[in-house]
């Protein structure tokens, strides 16, 4: 597995984890403005990193959530538990 891929994956995990934390927080504290601003900034950055990852290494999601170029690379190994 090449280094660029592992780096990109790590960045995606970090950003997505922040988004998970903010989601839980805002579920109980929806009235606060700062977490919402953080969430939107993170969501945008996350989307651009996931786009970049998918262009290089294939779709991250099935069921119409990611577009897939050329051939159905969704089934390509490694799966997450093989890394």
């Amino acid at each position, binding site marked *: 597995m090449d280094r660029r891929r592992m780096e990109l994956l790590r960045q995606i995990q970090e950003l*997505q984890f922040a988004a998970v934390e903010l989601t839980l927080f805002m579920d109980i504290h929806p009235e606060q403005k700062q977490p919402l601003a953080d969430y939107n900034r993170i969501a945008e950055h996350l989307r651009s990193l996931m786009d970049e990852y998918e262009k290089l290494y294939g779709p991250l999601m*099935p*069921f119409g959530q990611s577009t897939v170029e050329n051939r159905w690379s*969704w*089934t*390509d*190994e490694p*799966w997450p*538990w093989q890394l």
Partner: protein
Amino acid sequence: MWIYEKKLEYPAKVSRPDAKMAKLLLAQYGGPDGELSAALRYLTQRYTMPTGKTKALLTDIGTEELAHLEIIATLIYKLMKDVSLEEIKEAGAAGYYIHHDRALYYTDANGVPWTAAYIQSMGDPVTDLHEDMAAEQKARTTYEHLIQMTDDPDLIDTLRFLREREVVHFQRFGEALNLVQEHYAHRHVF
């Protein structure tokens, strides 16, 4: 990882409250061949599938089964929401009411709680895929039994959709089994 999508895969409507059908639908919620069993069966077997294609198929069907679990839960919720205590007693659902009121709990139609003993994960992909094909047929039969028990057209429409999905899953598992057998036949040449 998984992300929740705030919508059903297919509409789940009912024409009227019906405690009897709610109780029977538990068969596909926490029963042996229900949607919880299906999802957990495929999502645990996928790790030891031998190829990218079969890992993908079990991941994707396992995920779709979670969506079906949500549809069944929605149907049971709607069937139970406005039902009276009298109707609950008449439906033979008083025991369920005592433990769970109108809440969703993983039991079969007879109140037997879900158990991991309903599923298998043998580490042999040929064996596991045979179990999966059998499970899909049992789920299809259960949906046919459920459809026979009601005349609610909205409920029947959703149950027919779920029945049809079992047929498709069976077909895909059958194809996966062929791929796996070819995979091993090819390997054993060397």
